[in-house]
C-alpha cells in the first residue's frame, strides 16, 4: 500500500453527498483542513445548472449516467428490494428531488412512547439553528406558515398553495392534516420533475470550496477500511481503493467523518468490525425506509393544470399511531401516472423513458410512509463473497410487513376522503406500493442513541467507543419520519461538524 500523504491535522470526510459537503463547508469555514474522499469522478465537465428553465438536460445526464453505480448486493428478504448508489461528485444528491422539510419537535419525541429504543438523543431545539443555517446556504422556496406537524423554513421566495387547491386545503384541515406549498431548493419556478436534479448541493458548495487552501478533494477514492490507532481507541485514518490506478492508499486524519450515503457508511463500518467497532453487533440493525407509494387519480372536476408541487402533511400527532403515518407530495400534471421516484430514477439510470402522458392532467399523491425500525430489518455482510471493490458483499434483509402496508393504505383512504370532502370528482388511475428502497431513503443502520446498547453513535454523531469517528449521514436516524430526510440529515451533519470544531482541542492524538 502506498502512503501518499500523511498528516494529522486533516479531518477526513468520506462521501461528497449533501451531508459530506455541508460538513466540509462548515469545517473549512471554521479554519480546519479537510480532505474529502469521493468514490466517483471529479467535477463534471459539462455541467449546466440552469434553474429557471428546464434545459438542464443532456450534457449532464450523459455525464451522470456514466457514474451511476449499480451496487452489487444480495437480497435476503423482499426480493424486489432496491439499493441505489451514485459514484459522482454530489453523490445521490444528484438525484435529489429537492424537497426541503424540517422535522417537527414531536417527530423526535413520538417514538419514546413506544419504546426506549426509539428515543432520539437530540431534539428540535438542538437542530433549529442548524436548520436555519443550512436553509440560508441552499436557498429555499416555500411557505412561511408553521403548523404543528411541520415548522416553516427560512424561505427566500414565498410560495402559496395554488388557488385551484384551496378546496383541498380546507378539506385537509377537517382531517387534521394541512395542505401547504412544498418547500424546495432554489427558484420559485423549479419543478421537481426535472432530473438530474438542479439541487446538486455537492457540486454547488464544493465548487466554491475547491480552491480554498484548506480543502482537498480526492476523487475516484472508494473507501474500504477504517484504521484505528494502535494503542488508543481512536480512528487513525481510512484506506481507500484508487479506482483509476487500482492501488490501495491510506489517508490519515485527526478525525474521520463518514457520509457515504444510504448503507454506504454502514458497509464501511461493518467491514471493519472488530473488538471495538461493532462489539455489540448493533451496526446494520434497525434499518428503516421511507416507504413509497404512488396514488394517481384522474380529476374530472375541477379542471387542473400543471402546477407547483404541494405538500399534504401527516395528521396531527393526537390522531395517528406513533411512527405509523404518511405524508404526501401532491403533483398536478407535472408527472404522469408512473410512480415518481421510480420514473425519476428509471429515466436517469437509463432504464427507459417514462410513458407518454395521456390526455388530461392526472393528480399524483406521492406517499411517503414511516416504518417502525424493527430489529429484524437489517443489513449484514456475506460470509465470503466480495463485491467489485473487494468489500464483502452487502446483504439487505427488509420487507414491508402488514403494519407497513396498513399505514400506506390508511394514507390512500385519507387522500380519497380528502377529495370527497373537497367535492372533487375523481377516479383512481393507479395505486402502486413500491418495493423497499424505491424512495432512496434508507436509514437507521448506524443509529444515534445515548445508550451504547441501543445506538452506535451518540448525540454529537461520534461513535460511543471511538470519539473521533463520526457518522453524519441519514443512517444515524433513530426513527423514520415521513418527511423527506435530506434537510434534517444536512442539519445533523452541520451540527456534528460545528460541535467538532468547537471541541476540537479535546480530540487528537
Amino acid at each position, binding site marked *: 500500500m502506498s502512503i501518499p500523504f500523511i498528516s494529522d491535522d486533516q479531518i477526513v470526510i468520506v462521501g461528497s453527498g449533501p451531508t459530506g459537503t455541508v460538513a466540509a463547508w462548515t469545517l473549512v469555514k471554521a479554519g480546519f483542513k479537510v480532505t474529502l474522499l469521493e468514490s466517483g469522478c471529479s467535477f463534471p465537465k459539462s455541467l449546466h445548472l440552469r434553474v429557471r428553465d428546464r434545459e438542464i438536460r443532456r450534457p449532464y445526464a450523459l455525464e451522470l*449516467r456514466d457514474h451511476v453505480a449499480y451496487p452489487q448486493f444480495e437480497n435476503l428478504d423482499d426480493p424486489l428490494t432496491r439499493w441505489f448508489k451514485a459514484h459522482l461528485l454530489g453523490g445521490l444528491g444528484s438525484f435529489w428531488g429537492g424537497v426541503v422539510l424540517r422535522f417537527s419537535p414531536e417527530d423526535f419525541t413520538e417514538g419514546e412512547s413506544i419504546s426506549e429504543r426509539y428515543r432520539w438523543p437530540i431534539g428540535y431545539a438542538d437542530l433549529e439553528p442548524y436548520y436555519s443555517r443550512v436553509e440560508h446556504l441552499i436557498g429555499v422556496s416555500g411557505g412561511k406558515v408553521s403548523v404543528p406537524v411541520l415548522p416553516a423554513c427560512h424561505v427566500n421566495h414565498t410560495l402559496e398553495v395554488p388557488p385551484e387547491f384551496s378546496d383541498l386545503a380546507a378539506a385537509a384541515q377537517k382531517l387534521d392534516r394541512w395542505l401547504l406549498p412544498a418547500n424546495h431548493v432554489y427558484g420559485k419556478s423549479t419543478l421537481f420533475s426535472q432530473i438530474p436534479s438542479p439541487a446538486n448541493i455537492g457540486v454547488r458548495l464544493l465548487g466554491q470550496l475547491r480552491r480554498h487552501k484548506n480543502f482537498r478533494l480526492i476523487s475516484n477514492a472508494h473507501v474500504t477500511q477504517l484504521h484505528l490507532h494502535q494503542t488508543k481507541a481512536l480512528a487513525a485514518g481510512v484506506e481507500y481503493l484508487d479506482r483509476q490506478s487500482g492501488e490501495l492508499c491510506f489517508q490519515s486524519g485527526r478525525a474521520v467523518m463518514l457520509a457515504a450515503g444510504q448503507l454506504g457508511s454502514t458497509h464501511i463500518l461493518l467491514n471493519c468490525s472488530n473488538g471495538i467497532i461493532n462489539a455489540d453487533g448493533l451496526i446494520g440493525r434497525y434499518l428503516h425506509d421511507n416507504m413509497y407509494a404512488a396514488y394517481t387519480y384522474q380529476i374530472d372536476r375541477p379542471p387542473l393544470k400543471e402546477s407547483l408541487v404541494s405538500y399534504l402533511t401527516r395528521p396531527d400527532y393526537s390522531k395517528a399511531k406513533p411512527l405509523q403515518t404518511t405524508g404526501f407530495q401532491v403533483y398536478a400534471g407535472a408527472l404522469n401516472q408512473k410512480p415518481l421516484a421510480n420514473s425519476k430514477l428509471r429515466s436517469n439510470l437509463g432504464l427507459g423513458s417514462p410513458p407518454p402522458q395521456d390526455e388530461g392532467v392526472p393528480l399524483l399523491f406521492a406517499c411517503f410512509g414511516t416504518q417502525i425500525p424493527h430489529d429484524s430489518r437489517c443489513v449484514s455482510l456475506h460470509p465470503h463473497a466480495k463485491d467489485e471493490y473487494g468489500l464483502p458483499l452487502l446483504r439487505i434483509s427488509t420487507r414491508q410487513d402488514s403494519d407497513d402496508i396498513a399505514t400506506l393504505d390508511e394514507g390512500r383512504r385519507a387522500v380519497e376522503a380528502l377529495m370527497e370532502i373537497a367535492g372533487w370528482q375523481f377516479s383512481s388511475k393507479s395505486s402502486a406500493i413500491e418495493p423497499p428502497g424505491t424512495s432512496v431513503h434508507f436509514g437507521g443502520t448506524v443509529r444515534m442513541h445515548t445508550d451504547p446498547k441501543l445506538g452506535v453513535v451518540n448525540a454529537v454523531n461520534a461513535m460511543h467507543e471511538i470519539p473521533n469517528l463520526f457518522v453524519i449521514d441519514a443512517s444515524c436516524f433513530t426513527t423514520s419520519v415521513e418527511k423527506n430526510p435530506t434537510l434534517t440529515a444536512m442539519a445533523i451533519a452541520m451540527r456534528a461538524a460545528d460541535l467538532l470544531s468547537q471541541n476540537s482541542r479535546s480530540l487528537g492524538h
Partner: protein
Amino acid sequence: MAASKIFVTGASGFIGQALVVKLLEQGHHILAADDSRSAIDSPHQASVSNLKLDRLDRAALLPHLSGCDCVVNLAHPHQGTLQEQLRSAIESTQALLQACAEAQVKKFVHISSTSVYGDPPPSRIITEESPCLASLRPQTSIQQALEHLVLQTEAGDTEVVVLQLGRVYGPGKGGETARTLDQMKTAFMAIARYGTGYCNPIYIDDVVTAIIRACEGSNLHGQRFIVSHDQPVLWKELLCGYESILGTKSLIHLPIDYQCDPQDSIPFFREAVSKVLKKRKVMEGTSAIAKKIYGKSIYYPSADEFRSLVAQPIFSNQKSRDRLDFQPQISLQTGIERIREWWGQNLPETV
C-alpha cells in the same frame, strides 16, 4: 428412463414444446399444463393430455399429479403489476410443491436461469456457490425468490432440483432466436463495446437433454445446477451468426458501454452510413435515414440489455458434468447451421 408420467407446466413455451416433443419420442406420458393453450404438435398425440390451468391451486392439481413420476416447472408469470406477478408466482409454485409432496411425486425439476447470479452477472467465474446479486430487473428478482422458495420449502419425499439455464437459443417459435431474427430483419441493432461481452448461449436440444438428465438422476435433492457452456462465446459471434442467416447487414457496433440517447449514437451511425455512401451528407435523424436508405429502423437495446451486452461472466458447468453427467454437445457453429435450416423452411410463417 422407463416410460413414466411427467407433468410439465409452461408446456406451450419455447422450451416446453421442445421438451414435450422429446419426452413423447421417448415414450413417456405427458400432462402438459399451461394457461394459454396451443396444442402440442407431435406424432405421439395420444400420449399428451392438455390441461388449461389459469391458476395453479393445490386442490385442482392433486388429481392430475397422483401417479406422476416427475414434475417439470417451466411456468413463469407474465401478467399484472410487479407485486401481483411476484405473489402469483410464489403462490402457484408453493401450491405446486405442496401438491407434489401430497401426491408423492418423486421429482420436482424447477427451471431457473443463470441470471439469478446477477443480471448481468459480475464478470468472473460463476459457480453454484456464487452469491445471488440483486437485480434491477423484476423478472430476475422473481426468479431468485422462486429458486429460494423451492429449495427452502419442505416437500416431503419429493426430490427438488433446480436447473439454471444460460441464454437458450435455437429454432422454434416463441424463442429468443426467433425474436432476435425478426428484430434484426426489420431494424438495425446497436450493440455495445463491439459485442465483446459474453452471451453464454446454450442450444435448446442441450437444454432438453439436461432437463431429462435431471429427471432421471438420483440423490440430487436440494441441488442447483448451472446448464451452460464453460467456454465464453462473444455476443458478436452469436449476432454475426444471425446476421449471416439473414444475409443482410444489421449490426451497428458501438464502442461505448452504456445505453445512450439515440441521438448520441448519431456520430457512430453516421460513420457507418458514410462508409457505405461515401459522400452523402446526413442531416436527418438516424432512424429516418436508416428507414429511407435501407427500409429499416434502428433498434436500441434498453440499458438492461446494454449492460448484459458488456458483461463477461463465465459459468462453470463442473457440477452438472459431475453430478448430472451432462455436457453441452452442440457448438455455436452447429447451432447456427440448424437455425439457418429452420429459418429457411419457416420463412413465410415468421414474417
